[in-house]
């Protein structure tokens, strides 16, 4: 038997063991068949095709690990690898019939909802080799369903840790459904435990139904030895809104594919992405908003900082489909180059098939704002500190959108650490 057949058989065994519903097993098999026939997705100016990007080893059960009690506060989910360590819902959520559960439970208890929304609207499972591989080997995940008219005051927080201790690959799915008129915030923290060389394939789908409003904050801090494909995609119906705030602070090689499909009239996606590339890593970020609906609005803001010998590519794509009259697509990509050995790409792309629209982009590349720097230095800050402070301001659009103060604090610490390392590199290499 070929390796793939062996893998398929072990996934089927896993699926039987977990008593996955028939429709899901059938889809898995279809994905296995289709996987090898589909191409890898292509992103402008991001050449990742030779990376170890296809997961191969996903079934290892995670070893036991202690729950970090600090994380289990409020409405939280803590997952490490295939294990869900803690899942706490406040009374508010229970009373309002909000569903939050791990993937295994979701498939058994909410099979009909999953079947309706999973990889049929936002991300199509047969779109390319990575999405098919995702479905074929999906082993863990999270399902969130917020019913009609429900508004939540407290954010829902997840800590999703990739377990790289035993070299297993990671395929993780998050499906979020915001039913009509619902309104809530979600904060997703991703990191890595252990340092074996691994592949991660992560897909997050957000279905925002009519008039719903989702605030999505994501902080990605995957490890240096993890090669990851992270796809987050929104599907927005009439007058729905998603505010994306994504901080990419990974240490390994990353493909970030962030899309919003503005299907309904008046749908609105506001996408803010900040990224720091350090060391020798390569991060390729492809952020796309597609306006299908009339008077839909897409906004993209991308700010990136590039250090050491790293590479950061920002593609921003605003696509207005014919018929989307009155649509608006705006984007801004700004890159700070702090190293003479690094590489940065900012590719703002507009694809416009309709005339009654407004579309625009601005991109810039440069150094830290010298005026701001001198101002701070004149107040007694040393140069490196002043530089880091200016950069923190530059990353502000995402930092301020993080709904939890402690997460924000830790994020700032991580950023400080990365910048200090980058500054050391510059000193040595000059």
């Amino acid at each position, binding site marked *: 038997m070929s390796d793939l057949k062996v893998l398929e058989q072990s996934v089927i065994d896993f699926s039987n063991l977990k008593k996955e519903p028939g429709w899901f097993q059938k889809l898995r098999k279809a994905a296995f068949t289709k996987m090898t026939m589909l191409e890898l997705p292509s992103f402008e100016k991001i050449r990742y095709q030779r990376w170890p990007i296809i997961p191969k080893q996903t079934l290892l059960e995670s070893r036991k690990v202690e729950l970090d009690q600090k994380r289990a506060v409020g409405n939280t989910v803590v997952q490490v690898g295939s294990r869900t360590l803690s899942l706490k819902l406040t009374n508010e959520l229970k009373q309002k019939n909000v569903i939050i559960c791990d993937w295994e439970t979701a498939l058994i208890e909410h099979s009909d909802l999953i079947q309706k929304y999973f990889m049929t609207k936002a991300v199509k499972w047969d779109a390319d080799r990575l999405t098919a591989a995702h479905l074929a080997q999906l082993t863990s995940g999270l399902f969130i369903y917020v019913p009609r008219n429900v508004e939540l005051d407290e954010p829902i927080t997840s800590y999703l840790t990739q377990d790289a201790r035993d070299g297993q690959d990671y395929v993780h799915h998050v499906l979020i459904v915001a039913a009509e008129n619902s309104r809530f915030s979600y904060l997703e923290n991703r990191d890595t435990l252990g340092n074996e060389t691994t592949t991660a394939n992560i897909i997050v789908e957000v279905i925002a139904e009519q008039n719903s409003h989702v605030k999505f904050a994501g902080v990605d801090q995957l490890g240096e030895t993890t090669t990851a494909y992270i796809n987050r995609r929104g599907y927005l119906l009439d007058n729905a809104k998603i505010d994306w705030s994504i901080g990419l602070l990974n240490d390994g090689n990353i493909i970030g594919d962030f899309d919003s499909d503005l299907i309904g009239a008046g749908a609105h996606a506001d996408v803010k992405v900040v990224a720091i590339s350090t060391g020798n890593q390569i991060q390729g970020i492809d952020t796309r908003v597609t306006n299908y609906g009339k008077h839909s609005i897409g906004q993209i803001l991308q700010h990136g900082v590039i250090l050491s010998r790293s590479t950061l590519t920002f593609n921003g794509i605003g696509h207005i489909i014919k018929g989307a009259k009155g649509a608006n697509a705006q984007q801004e990509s700004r890159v700070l180059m702090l190293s003479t050995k690094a590489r940065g790409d900012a590719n703002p792309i507009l694809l416009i098939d309709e005339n009654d629209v407004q579309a625009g982009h601005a991109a*810039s590349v440069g150094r830290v704002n010298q005026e701001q720097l001198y101002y701070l230095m004149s107040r007694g800050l040393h140069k490196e500190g002043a530089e880091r402070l200016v950069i923190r301001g530059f990353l502000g659009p995402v930092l301020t959108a993080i709904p939890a103060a402690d997460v924000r604090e830790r994020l700032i610490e991580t950023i400080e650490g990365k910048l200090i390392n980058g500054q050391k590199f510059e000193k040595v290499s000059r």
Partner: protein
Amino acid sequence: MKELDVGGEYEYGFKDDFEPIYSTGRGLTEATVREISAAKNEPEWMLDYRLRAFALYEKMPMPSFGPDLSQLDLANMRYFQRASDTIARDWDDVPDKIKETFDRLGVPEAERKYLAGSSAQYESEVVYHHMREDFEKLGIIFMDTDSALQEYPELVKQYFGKLVPASNNKFSALNSAVWSGGTFIYVPKGVKTEVPIQSYFRINAENTGQFERTLIIVDEGASVNYVEGCTAPNYSADSLHAAVVEVNVMKDAYCRYTTIQNWSDNVYSLETKRARALENATMEWVDGNLGSKVTMKYPSIYLDGQGAHGTMLSIAFAGGNIIQDTGAKMIHNAKKTTSSIVSKSLCKDGGRVDYRGYLKFGRHSDGSFAHVECDTIIMDDQSASDTIPFNEILNGNVSMEHEAKVSKISEEQLYYLMSRGISEAKATEMIVMGFVEPFTKELPMEYAVELNRLIEYQMEGSVG
């Protein structure tokens, strides 16, 4: 609102029934390449160059991006047609029928008025060429590239194919295999000419391939202003214009290269234009694309010397079913180099106008700066536009600003003008004229007037 007269046709769509005195017929084989070279009595190295390029051409794929070229009938094309066996230096010596054609295009008239030199290419070769004596005395060489190869073989050999290798793309390989005509200019050290030199390119027969090869060398401290215009008759069968242009701008030199491309809507215009600017040199492309069926053209400037400056100023206008796929490339390879790209695009009646750009700051481009501005107006809901700029940065000590906007005609501006009693059609035209003004104001007077007239004509019937 009053119905506007849509009338009028492509003004340069007339044709004459002039028969070429020599032609390689339809289609292209290695024998055709040898035949062209033999007909021109070329040195051995050029034949070898052509044959190597032909082998490349046969192997290379069509471009992987941009407009669909599958309707381009390369097998039926006429690759070489000689119209005259001498190059006239006096307008009276040009064959009557060709003369009539160029007279209608206003070519000699323009020369009398304001040009330092002028040449006219008809099908594959230059039929007329003239240079004002006072400029000739300064040592400026201005002739067709075929003659230059005979008269200045060493100079041509030194620069030919050095900026645009045959292997650059399928159509540069094709040009390198079958090139004919085009302009050769050499401006000696320190010689400056303010008065423009002009070439006019005309395709007359249907299914014609025109492969001009232009080579310009502006030596240290010299300056030149070169203008080219292009037209062709309307046919149902398509023609192909695949030029290669190489411009070498030496230390402290200046070159402005202005193109007004107004091919008829059966011409594929697939161009490769590249310039290299050395220390403190300035290269400027001024590029107007108004006609053709499909245009693919992305002039580039390699800023290889410290302090070099490059400019691209362009407009593209895509009317009914025309595809203008144009743009610019700036490659900053040295310290303190600067560049600016300003692109204005308009499309209507199902036209498609795309901007494709590439901007690179190399490892050694410390202190460099680039500015890019792309504005597009989509005039109606049959038309579309993509803006696809790539910016690649390999140096931490540079700065780049890029802005782009796509919209319809501004309603605010329209209503303001109409509230002053101006008709919608006139107001629209005024807004468009204002939109392209940064371009027209850089053109020589005669061209600016002509361009404004062309745009007025293109705009007719756009409101109603």
